[in-house]
């Protein structure tokens, strides 16, 4: 036990290593730092380049060597973007914000409700219903697009916000995730105590289960919001009215129609990832925690 340096407090001096160097294999070497810094640099570079192009004029963009520092043209690029009637960028941002918000609230509410039922309540057919939800998670979205599109057409929703909102109001992943958390983090005694105090089931959900689930809800809400904001496949089919796009469709309209005006297109990509970027800066720790915890459960 004492031969390891891993997690050994400072007080015990590292004993002379019987083996060659690298015995403490959990210490970061310079090579580790080089590798990680290189990866982070490559991860950030395209985003940095986005800022560079979005703040330059098109003349400087189309030059060799390519510009590597931001310029001062963001304002005029943005105003060209926002006044571009063929991309409807502001409408796109508004639509995406609204749709993502509604979907997030709905997914969190229905997932916690169903997760609570599956995790803590007894009812006939519980396991069969849960199995059905797990199966729905396996099927790719593409399989159902044709009838879904027809349905949207019949409802008169194509090209309008409900088309990209209503089909996403519930999802199996959320129910599954919440069931796992409810089972682990809400003790049965707590629920029983609430019942003894005369709480009905909904009251237990609202004032016992929901508060206990707060960290998990944060993670689910973040993932749902990001997924919805970034959704592209279904929107490219269902939002077929160019005057009423989501933000991703605005980007598509921009990139297919204005490939010569890079500065404007890049101003659009920059604006479109700005909300995600802010969410990431504020909640990065929770997002990382959510991915890593989810990985252990899978």
């Amino acid at each position, binding site marked *: 036990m004492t031969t390891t340096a891993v997690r050994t407090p400072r007080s015990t001096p590292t004993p002379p290593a019987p083996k060659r160097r690298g015995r403490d294999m959990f210490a970061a070497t310079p090579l580790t730092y080089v590798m990680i810094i290189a990866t982070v640099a490559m991860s950030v570079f395209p985003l940095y380049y986005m800022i560079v192009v979005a703040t330059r004029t098109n003349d400087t963009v189309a030059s060799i060597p390519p510009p590597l520092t931001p310029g001062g043209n963001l304002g005029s690029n943005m105003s060209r973007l926002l006044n571009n009637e063929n991309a409807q960028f502001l409408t796109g941002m508004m639509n995406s914000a609204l749709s993502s918000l509604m979907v997030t609230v709905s997914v969190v509410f229905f997932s916690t409700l169903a997760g609570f039922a599956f995790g803590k309540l007894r009812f006939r057919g519980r396991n069969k219903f849960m199995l059905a939800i797990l199966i729905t998670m396996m099927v790719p979205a593409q*399989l159902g697009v044709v009838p879904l599109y027809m349905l949207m057409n019949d409802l008169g929703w194509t090209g309008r916000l409900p088309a990209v909102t209503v089909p996403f109001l519930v999802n199996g992943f959320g129910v599954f995730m919440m069931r796992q958390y409810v089972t682990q983090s809400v003790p049965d005694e707590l629920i029983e105590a609430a019942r003894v105090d005369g709480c009905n089931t909904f009251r237990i959900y609202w004032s016992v289960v929901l508060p206990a689930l707060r960290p998990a809800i944060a993670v689910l809400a973040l993932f749902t919001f990001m997924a919805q904001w970034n959704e592209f496949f279904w929107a490219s089919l269902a939002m077929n009215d160019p005057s009423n796009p989501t933000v991703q469709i605005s980007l*598509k309209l921009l990139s297919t129609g204005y490939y010569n005006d890079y500065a404007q297109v890049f101003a659009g990509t920059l604006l479109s990832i700005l909300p995600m970027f802010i969410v990431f800066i504020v909640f990065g720790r929770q997002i990382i925690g959510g991915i890593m915890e989810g990985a252990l459960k899978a």
Partner: protein
Amino acid sequence: MTLPTTAPRPTRSDRRPADRELPRPGWGRFSKLDTKASPYLYIAPFFILFGIFGAYPLVYTAWVALHHWEVGADTHTFVGLDNFTKILSDSDFWNAVYNTVGIFVLSTIPQLLLALVLANALNKRMRGRTFWRMGVLIPNITSVAAVSIVFSQLFGRDFGFINWILHFFGVQPFEWQAYKWSSWIAVSTMVDWRWIGYNALIYLAAMQSIPKDIYESASLDGASSRRQFWTLTVPMLRPTIIFTVIISTIGGLQLYAEPLLFNGGTNPFLGGTLRQSQTVTMYLMEQFFGRFQFGDMAAVAWLLFLLIMIFAGINYLITSRLERSDKKSSKKRGGTR
């Protein structure tokens, strides 16, 4: 498991007393109704919404796929499996399958290998852990549309950053969109840029749950850290690796936005004039936007689903075999455990 809640359950109710009937004066009937009906009420919204917008379309796809069904037409004639035979004899479909599988292999193998190596680096003790983790995850929060647009510019022929780097090595300005292999590389780069960090975090989580004393005894036996990585860490990650392979298979074979926006042009669903980078999902959309055929589109959706199932199965078998032979050989090579 699903006994009625009123029945006395001596052993189980001790363990899970959450909703045991408890006498409450004046509450009797309502409370009984509450405990009986509430669970169904709580799962109902999911099943109702999913039933309408998820399950019904899935089932109905099969029906549509068996009909000649034009967009906007009132009558649909039953044609049996004709749509399927038509699609299966279309060389464009097979080209799309070839592209999809090619890009999938070209992107997934480096993606998961690099993620493993990166996770191993992130697993070391170091300062600023959260900062580095956020740094590698940041590509994942950007939308595919934005990523594809930026990379299309980076891969541009005349003023693209990558060609500019390559010219230092004497490479002439190259049109990445023009050829199959180069489109595949460009699209794979986008996919990998977006997903390496995410997969690395998943591997990192699994690595942290490996008990450290295994490594102690391995290093006492004189195993180098590289050898420990391949003979200890990787085999221990087996379930996680299988999980990421399956997830990447399902996601990778549905590839759509990256190739679509990379090779835009006037008819973006073709993936270039010679269909250099048309994937199956793009081909699916072409049935709608280019040919107005719902029936064919539904048939392609089924074939895509089948393709995903086949590849998920194959990849599951390959990964579980690979890992197992790894374990065996590590034992043969001197038994690190």
